[in-house]
């Protein structure tokens, strides 16, 4: 419903600004779902980082830690994965792959240690500290690709390609890599954590009602938020590692087209449900994959899909506010 309205808004906007709206939409569809190759190599490849980071965001937000720094954690993971991945000559994939991904997870987690510490020690809002560290991470990428990790010719601002053994296997004939399996596994794990385990329930309770959770005497909401933030950083770091190991095989600036930010929308749109994140990640992946095609085929700037994304989010938020108001009104009527 929200998606339809968002697409409708785009159609209207395109028509009003004089583009061929139908051609543009056709290109968008073709680019995202038009062929097996488009679906796997464009849509799914785009969706994997959005899903993984989105799951990390869902974990943080569920635990009442507002992690706006997934972009930075993604880059921290990408840097670590590259640093390990270029130094694994002669190792079998069974060693190299886990090493690369583990490095990414650790680096992503380490990147949030400072916000976690600042929060626990001084009560610094993690919204601000994680956001600011994004800029630090981007600067760090810029430094390492012109310094310690620069390719051996020392010409281009990018790293050497990682060893073959450190690359995720591909689905034959496509660019789709095994990171999709990791994303689905992770979604399943989080679903189990939130839905079935006592610890996951306490995390949700600490997020939904920190005061009541604390008074229950069995949950420390501040600790829960810290753990959620750490886990979230590790997951975003994993996404960075998966991107290097599955798609780019090297580190360079602008490796992420803002996955860390788009994933917030992905997670919120899914209402922080792990299964929902898979679906919304897919949707946003399709939109962004289609955007490229739309630009090539119909000359419509790719950024217009951000309008659709924004419209979808706004519509969902409005619907939420509307239903809350309806509930409140029903309550008032019941009270009188």
């Amino acid at each position: 419903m929200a998606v339809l309205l968002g697409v409708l808004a785009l159609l209207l906007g395109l028509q009003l600004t004089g583009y061929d709206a139908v051609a543009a939409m056709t290109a968008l569809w073709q680019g995202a779902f038009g062929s097996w190759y488009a679906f796997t190599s464009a849509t799914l490849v785009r969706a994997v980082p959005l899903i993984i980071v989105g799951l990390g965001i869902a974990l943080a937000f569920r635990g009442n830690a507002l992690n706006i720094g997934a972009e930075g954690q993604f880059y921290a993971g990408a840097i670590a994965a590259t640093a390990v991945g270029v130094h694994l000559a002669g190792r079998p994939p069974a060693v190299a792959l886990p090493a690369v991904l583990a490095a990414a997870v650790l680096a992503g987690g380490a990147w949030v240690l400072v916000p976690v510490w600042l929060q626990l020690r001084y009560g610094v809002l993690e919204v601000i500290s994680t956001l600011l560290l994004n800029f630090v991470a981007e600067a760090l990428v810029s430094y390492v690709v012109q310094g310690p990790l620069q390719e051996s010719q020392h010409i281009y601002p990018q790293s050497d390609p990682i060893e073959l053994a450190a690359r995720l296997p591909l689905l034959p004939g496509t660019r789709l890599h095994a990171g999709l399996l990791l994303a689905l596994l992770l979604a399943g794990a989080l679903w189990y954590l939130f839905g079935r385990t006592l610890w996951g329930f306490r995390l949700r309770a600490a997020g939904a009602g920190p005061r009541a959770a604390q008074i229950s005497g069995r949950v420390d909401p501040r600790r829960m938020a810290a753990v959620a933030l750490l886990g979230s950083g590790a997951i975003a770091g994993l996404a960075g590692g998966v991107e290097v190991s599955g798609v780019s095989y090297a580190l360079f600036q602008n490796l992420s087209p803002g996955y860390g930010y788009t994933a917030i929308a992905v997670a919120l749109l899914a209402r922080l449900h792990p299964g929902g994140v898979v679906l919304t990640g897919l949707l946003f992946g399709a939109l962004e994959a289609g955007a490229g095609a739309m630009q090539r085929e119909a000359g419509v700037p790719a950024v217009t899909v951000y309008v659709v994304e924004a419209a979808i989010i706004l519509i969902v938020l409005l619907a939420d506010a509307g239903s809350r108001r309806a509930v409140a009104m029903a309550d008032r009527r019941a009270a009188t």
Partner: protein
Amino acid sequence: MTAPAALDLRGIAKRFGSVQALRGADFSLAPGEIHALLGENGAGKTTLMRIAFGLVQPDAGAILIEGKRRTMDSARTARRLGLGMVHQHFTSVPALTVAENVALAAAWPVAPAALARRVRAVAARFGLPLDPALRAGHLSVALKQRLEIVKALASDARILLLDEPTAVLTPAESDELLRMVRAFTTAGGAAVLITHKLDEALAAADRVTVLRQGAVVFAGPVAGQSPGSLAREMVGDGPTASRPSPSRSRAPDAPLLIRLEELEVPRESGYGIAVRRVTLGVRSGEVVGVAGVEGNGQRELLRAVAGRLPPLRGRRDVAGPIAFIPEDRTTEGLIPSLSLTENVVLGSRSDDPWIRRGRIDWRTARARTAALLTEYAIVAPGPDAPAGSLSGGNQQKLVVARELAHDPKVVVAENPTRGLDLRAGQEIHDRLRAAAAAGAAVLVYSSDLDEVLALADRILVAARGSLIEAPPGAGRAAIGELMVAGGR
């Protein structure tokens, strides 16, 4: 009296939900006087003043300002008519300066230099030095209170309504504030002083009005009154108010399940000490009630007993499991957005049948919740409904059901029936008594003295962080006197 009353409230009535807050209250404030308004918690003092200030609309009654009948539809109207109000809680914006806060309250244009001059002028007129450039958040408590008063006076108020202005002040600061109020009335203003401190009312006020359960029970000059006589007016001493059964049957040698020795507990805010060297024992089968004027340490004491607030020093031996029924059910007792089942699981212990090695068996938990709904007659669509969709009484019953489900050895309850109708309150009382009969030690605080009297085998009065044991069979008046006398 030739001049009309500065403020005249006639027959004011107000109902909130099932609670009749005011029942035809009359209040008359003469020009040039300080008029103390007394009453227990919930007697309707604040509501009456909020009605005068246009923040609450009365169901019935008339408001006359200087002899003319007025409709107080908003605080803006009240300010225009010369009223100023100092609220119980600080209402300044911490990030703004003193001058900006005053401008905000008085609707002055924000022109820095002129504003600072105006604020200084108002402050100086009443002997209240205050630097207009300071940020409100950086002021000390006494200066914050001073700012509140300057805000109230800024729009040329002639009538000042002060809601417990000295509650947060030291005695010296209180004296200074009351001198200032006197200067204001000497200059032609009139002031209403809501307070819990009877000696303060006697010292500062010209006349006094006492509210009890929303009705005026006394109005007259302070001359000839004593703290004791005012306390009797506040709490009443009707035949129904004497204790129904002073001691219920219980074994005097039952085991002590709560034992405190010289316990000291910090304030919840972390600043200062709330409970001072309290020693207390509660036996199995006993219901001990704590009475006291709000803010005398009873809240912190109960939370320390329940293990929710770590004490500073002293000994605390409390048998488990402990059931804790917090005062505020929507933020502390329950999580409104979660389902009833989830809220029951929130209180889980690792040996509950629905917990298996860190996993939750929701089917068992749901069945258990459904059983609790039936057992406690909780009106709810079902165990999957969000807790926020229940009425207050049913929410409270859910909290009680969850907490008592573990056959607790110790039950700690804060204002367990606040805001509930009679029937729901009665059911909760029955549950607490049943828990005691089953061998628990029950410690309950209520700001409603009648509730303490109805429920408790033994009554303790909290005053300034200490506990005073009320003599067996003491009635409302005797306990009321302990509440205020201990507070001195």
